[in-house]
């Protein structure tokens, strides 16, 4: 056994190694990128809506990096494709948290996908920002909901229809796609309408499968329902591309917005991009943001988006804005907490304020939901919305609706 001979060369190398070691170590602590998971369907039925949200997150990541990263660290996006397959959402969420060890995830569109990943995020203590309006009746310490709760979208929209500007509707048709969001929202709306003196005889409720394309029967039944001598309006929670044939049938059967207005909760600029909008002029949508909002933050958002996507004809919409707001709040919280540790960031996110593209400053509430302004827009010929009504100030979210009896007392 021979001891290694200490030569001048090895001594120098050892010295250099011991000197440079702490430097390397601190550089890696600073340089280890923050990992941002993106959990949106890039294939399948929901790809139409969710692809733009993936691009929004990528745009925000690029923007954060060009501004020197978050808290001095580079941001890196990890994109996975759950393929519009609800159980696969849970698997991909687990992959993001356990294999890629992401610090935060932005993702999901349909409520059923969110319900599928919720236990995974709670079990592995992840952090999910969910950017779409939904039915409420949920609260998780691991999820931040940056879309609207029912009191920030559905209820004000129906109130508008019943008011003078909306045409004083006395009979309401609730049309929806057959899954959890429309059914819960319509249950809340039925409770609300009943409380306003509209009886069940004046409410028609129908559901159709995802991707339904034959609307003839339903639209002619709506016409019959409307011939009872009371002003009628349609409240649509139809999701995805089933909206296109629905609106086409409305147009073909001659239902004009002046006679039977239709307000939709899931139709935005992106969905209108595939429709000839001329027959739809005057039909409504309720959101918390429209691309047509005239605000400096919105102009910046649109120009950033067009630069990033390299196509000046692409539109922005409400869930994209909610994604942007969520990302900014998370980035501010990380900067404030000085770490990406989930528990520290979670407490720091609450109370964050962001001057959002909708033209208002939004705040994250302790119930993990936002304050949001409510806007009602009419469809215009160019596929954009003309804002005809908006709340003067942001409305705080009530995720537990007062119109669902068993949850009413859970409100804070």
């Amino acid at each position, binding site marked *: 056994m021979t001891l290694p001979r200490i030569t001048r060369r090895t001594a120098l190398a050892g010295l250099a190694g011991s000197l440079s070691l702490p430097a390397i170590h601190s550089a890696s602590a600073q340089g280890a990128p923050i990992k941002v998971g993106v959990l949106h369907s890039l*294939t399948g039925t929901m790809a*139409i809506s969710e692809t733009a949200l993936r691009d929004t997150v990528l745009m925000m990541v690029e923007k954060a990096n060009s501004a020197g990263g978050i808290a001095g660290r580079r941001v890196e996006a990890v994109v996975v494709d759950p393929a519009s397959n609800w159980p696969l959402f849970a698997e991909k969420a687990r992959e993001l948290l356990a294999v890629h060890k992401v610090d935060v995830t932005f993702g999901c569109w349909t409520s059923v996908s969110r319900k599928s990943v919720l236990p995974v995020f709670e079990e592995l203590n992840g952090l999910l920002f969910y950017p779409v309006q939904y039915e409420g009746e949920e609260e998780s310490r691991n999820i931040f909901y940056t879309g609207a709760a029912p009191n920030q979208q559905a209820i004000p929209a129906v109130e508008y229809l019943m008011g003078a*500007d909306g045409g004083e509707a006395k009979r309401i048709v609730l049309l929806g796609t057959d899954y959890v969001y429309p059914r819960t929202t319509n249950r809340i709306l039925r409770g609300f309408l009943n409380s306003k003196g509209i009886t069940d005889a004046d409410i028609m409720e129908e*559901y159709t*499968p995802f991707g339904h394309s034959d609307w003839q029967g339903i639209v002619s039944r709506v016409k019959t329902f409307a011939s009872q*001598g009371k002003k009628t309006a349609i409240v649509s929670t139809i999701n995805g591309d089933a909206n296109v044939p629905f609106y086409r049938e409305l147009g073909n059967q001659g239902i004009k917005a002046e006679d039977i207005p239709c307000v939709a909760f899931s139709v935005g600029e*992106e969905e209108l*991009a595939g429709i000839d909008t001329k027959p739809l002029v005057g039909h409504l949508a309720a959101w918390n943001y429209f691309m047509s909002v005239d605000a400096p933050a919105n102009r910046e958002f649109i120009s950033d988006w067009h630069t990033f996507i390299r196509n000046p004809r692409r539109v922005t919409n409400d869930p994209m804005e909610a994604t942007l707001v969520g990302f900014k709040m998370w980035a501010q919280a990380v900067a404030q907490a000085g770490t990406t540790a989930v528990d520290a960031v979670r407490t720091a996110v609450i109370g964050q304020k962001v001057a959002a593209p909708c033209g208002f400053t939004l705040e994250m509430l302790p119930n993990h939901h936002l304050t949001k302004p409510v806007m009602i827009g009419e469809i215009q010929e160019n596929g954009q919305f003309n804002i005809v009504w908006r709340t003067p100030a942001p409305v705080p979210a009530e995720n537990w609706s007062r119109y669902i009896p068993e949850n009413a007392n859970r409100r804070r």
Partner: protein
Amino acid sequence: MIARLLAVLLFCALAASARAQTRFEELVPRLGAGFGPAAEAVQALGAQGDPRALPILRALSDGRLLRNAEGRVILDGRDAATGEAIPAEGASRINLNNRLRVVLRGAIGRLALSSPNAAERRAAADAVFRTRSAENVPLLEDALSNESIPEIRALMELALGASRLLVDDVTVQRAGIIVLGGAGTPEARALLLEARAAKPELAPDIDAAVATIDRRLAIRRAFETVFQGLSLGSVLLLAALGLAITFGVMGVINMAHGEMVMIGAYTTFMVQEALRHTAWAGWSLPLSVPAAFIVTALVGVVLERCLIRHLYGRPLETLLLTFGIGMMLQQAVRLIFGAQNREVLSPAWMQGTLLLPGGLPVTANRLWIIVFGLAVLAVTMLAIRFTRFGLEMRAVVQNRRIAATMGIRTGWVDAATFAFGSGLAGLAGVALSQIDNVSPNLGTGYIIDSFMVVVFGGVGSLVGTLVGALTLGLVNKLLEPYAGAVLAKVAVLVGIMLFIQRRPKGLFALKGRAAE
């Protein structure tokens, strides 16, 4: 004394006209002052009956009316109120909301009732019908006395009836009720029920009129259900026809059939884009028919020659292979065209509602698709029955070896048959582009239905496919009002399962040696 009185009267008249004058100039700028004031101004302009208001209101309705920073309303580079030329720079379009649109429709209707243009008078009569008011009665009576075209007279009488319902005089109202009762439309029914709620003493008359309307509406509804059933049936027929050839005749379980439909729809989109700015733009849909057939038939030939022919007689492998091809085609289209839906425009003759004799409304696009579906079926049957290709195809199906000994190149017949079936799927894509979304997933929604139709109708029988498609369409639409769209589909599926248990070969089973 009298002279003095006259002078006072004259003065009053002048003052009144002067006031009307200033009112017009005052009212016009209010059109740009927000939805509420604008609605009032529109109403006032319509009530005054000043012909100068008509072009302004029309411009407002078409979105051509502008408003500048000083609050002046501009039409075609001139101040709408004064006619003074002002630059339109910095001016923005005046937006409408639904309340304003309703009022605007009524006001334009009132002003246009006496228009020299017949089409304008017709639109005006309809508008006045929808926005009836008691003040319209003398206006309509006046317009009726000058009207000579019977169709417009009927519309005006209907509008008069609707407005008479609002006059506070029971005999006038009764006259209105009789006119509306005779109209027999859901709109008239709604007006009558509205009047009934307001005036209980008219209830017996109104109930009688509503009962007449309801009888007519019941007939209309029955007709509508049958039409909708036929329409759904024709869509199923189109989607299934290609499969009736590839699966029914050749026995290839072609899971990529839906993607052929989708490629046909995308071809329609491509033809539309290629012709968009040319003189042929209006012909893009008819031209898509041959284009889609050729494109999908070519894709079919390539698939058959390169892949499917190696797996004849191995149904399970064919199923997996075609399923995989379907997914690849979907993703390929998604990569080329993007995940977004593509917009295929409907030509004017495929939009809106047509009135059949007897006042029965049918939507134009559905009617054309029924016609198209039947035409495609007829051509297919003729091709199989009377052409040399059809003869060879039948020969190969019945006995491949004897057909081969007779000098038929069976391999090429297989390729041609598969191409023909794929081409038919492409034609279905052209039709579906008019009623469904042109998206990469278009086909997946129809593949199950297509197999259902072919199996139910009887594998290998085109008549079976026709009867199967129409039966499924009708049953679906008959069940829908009672069970809802989701349960109706489930019920139809259960019904087919039970039926197949009893008759595994479907409605029109092939008999004899050809069945094997």
